């Protein structure tokens, strides 16, 4: 296949005191694809994701984004590279409406010295983004508190897109959802892929990963054991890798 690598970690290493969470991981993320990262609890998935989203800094190693060696300085630096994370708890403010949540931390402003909020502009842009991802949110002035799990996910993804996210990291997006809402989120991921976004998906659910992902990478004890294309792998093989059995 002629898929293009958009982001690459190069021998990335991270320790917390005595705990060696990520061991010299070199991982390729493919453009416009759903790149799943699976592994047991404590395998180092979350740490690796935090390194990519700028929430943590590596002890060693670096990143190559769109072919260029770069550093990811912090969350703001990650936004600059078009990397946006959708955290597992979604980081939404319950008592605020959909629009303000989508623009949280990157509000549009207008007026002299840009001191006033551009409510109209934010409303319009929020509608556009939500329409693009076919989100079903009837009223964008509704408080997030009153939304369903699927709708919340859409708000959080909308926020990532507004930040100019090209590479969208989703951490266990369906972990707390029911069947119907899980389908909604899977459709959302599909829509994002159709629009050419790159998705990094962390999940526990192997069946789901096989349903939606293009590439499946497995971590074990802080190491990247391997990456398989979905069509060439079997569930049994991936499960064996999660248990730490390297396949040739």
């Amino acid at each position: 296949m002629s898929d293009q690598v958009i982001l690459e970690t190069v021998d990335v290493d991270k320790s917390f005191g005595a705990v060696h969470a990520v061991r010299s991981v070199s991982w390729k993320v493919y453009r416009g694809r759903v790149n799943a990262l699976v592994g047991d609890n404590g395998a180092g998935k979350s740490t690796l994701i935090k390194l990519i989203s700028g929430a943590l800094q590596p002890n060693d190693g670096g990143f190559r984004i769109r072919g260029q060696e770069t550093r990811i300085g912090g969350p703001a630096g990650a936004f600059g590279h078009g990397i946006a994370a959708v955290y597992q708890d979604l980081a939404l403010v319950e008592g605020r409406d959909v629009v303000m949540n989508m623009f949280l931390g990157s509000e549009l402003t207008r007026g002299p010295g840009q001191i006033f909020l551009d409510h109209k502009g934010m409303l319009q842009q929020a509608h556009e983004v939500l329409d693009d991802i076919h989100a079903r949110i009837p009223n964008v002035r509704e408080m997030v508190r009153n939304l369903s799990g699927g709708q919340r996910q859409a708000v959080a993804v909308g926020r990532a897109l507004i930040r100019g996210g090209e590479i969208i990291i989703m951490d266990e997006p369906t972990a707390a959802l029911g069947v119907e809402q899980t389908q909604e989120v899977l459709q959302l991921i599909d829509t994002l892929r159709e629009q050419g976004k790159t998705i990094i998906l962390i999940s526990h659910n192997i069946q789901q990963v096989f349903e939606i992902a293009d590439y499946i990478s497995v971590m074990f004890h802080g190491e990247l054991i391997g990456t398989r294309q979905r069509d060439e792998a079997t569930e049994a093989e991936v499960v064996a890798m999660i248990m730490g059995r390297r396949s040739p």
Partner: protein
Amino acid sequence: MASDVGTNRVGSAMTGQVGRERRKRIVQFLLDNGLFIAFVLELILFAVAAPDLFIRSRTLEAILRLSGPAGIVLASYTITLISGQIDLSTAQVGGMASLMFAAVFQLLAWPLGVALALTVVLTIAVGLLSSYLIQQGIPSFVSTLAVGVVSGGIGYLIINLTKQPGMIRLVRPPLRDIANFEVFNVPFVIPLMFIAYAIGWVVLNQTRFGAHIYALGGNPAAAALNGINAVRIARIVLVINAVITGMAGILIAGRQLAAQPGVEGLGQSLTAALFAGVALSGGSGKIERTLIGLLFLSTLTIGLGILNVSAPVRQLINGLAFVIAILLDSIRQQLATR
């Protein structure tokens, strides 16, 4: 037959749910608008109880005069509360500022500007101390409690150093005239209060800073993940609150012609804000409503005074108002999370 019973049960369960929804809506409506209803009822009650004494322009003026400095504080207090910080040092900071000002302006007879500047510097220092403690991971209510004790101590220290009998008389013009200054026959603190509210409203609803204040109060973790600098916001909010409280303390001292440690009339901020639906835990509330909460409490004070209710009973009523305010907040929180 069996299926009939089944549908019946489903039907009644559904009407039950509809009933619960309706009840929830009614409670929500009352919580949102009960303050207005209570305020109107209060006015009617006092008007009926003391028609000739209560229904006069002087009463209205007294209520507004009482609300003036307290309202200025409440505007910034509300913003502080929405950002997730509970400031318990208000009374002491107001008292300390008025004593500082009185010592420099009245006793040393220095110019007004210098006295004001020194007071502002002192209140900024106090605000910075509170925010520093909060930054260390100490909850705001404990931090500000300790800072309140320190501020009260500074107030007493000023009295000790100047060898005054428990308070400093404040009669030097032009302050006396400023506190009683009138524009178009209206005490100027009243328009000043409305200006403070207007600024507060714009900041909260029309600026980025305001959006960040709501986010920080609503979900500090989410705010941090989205690049909002919590420490900076808390610092700005607390310093501004301390400065404004200090200025209000001076205004009150000017009206009473004396500066004392611990200013009365500023302690009702929390009650007024909670009445108006600002959440104790931060993140929600409308600033314009807190003005009604304050007017409600001021009317209560003036009305009970007109009715000649004794001081302990008045204090009891104020205490119970605080209890009711926190109960309302609790009910609101439970409804919101249900």
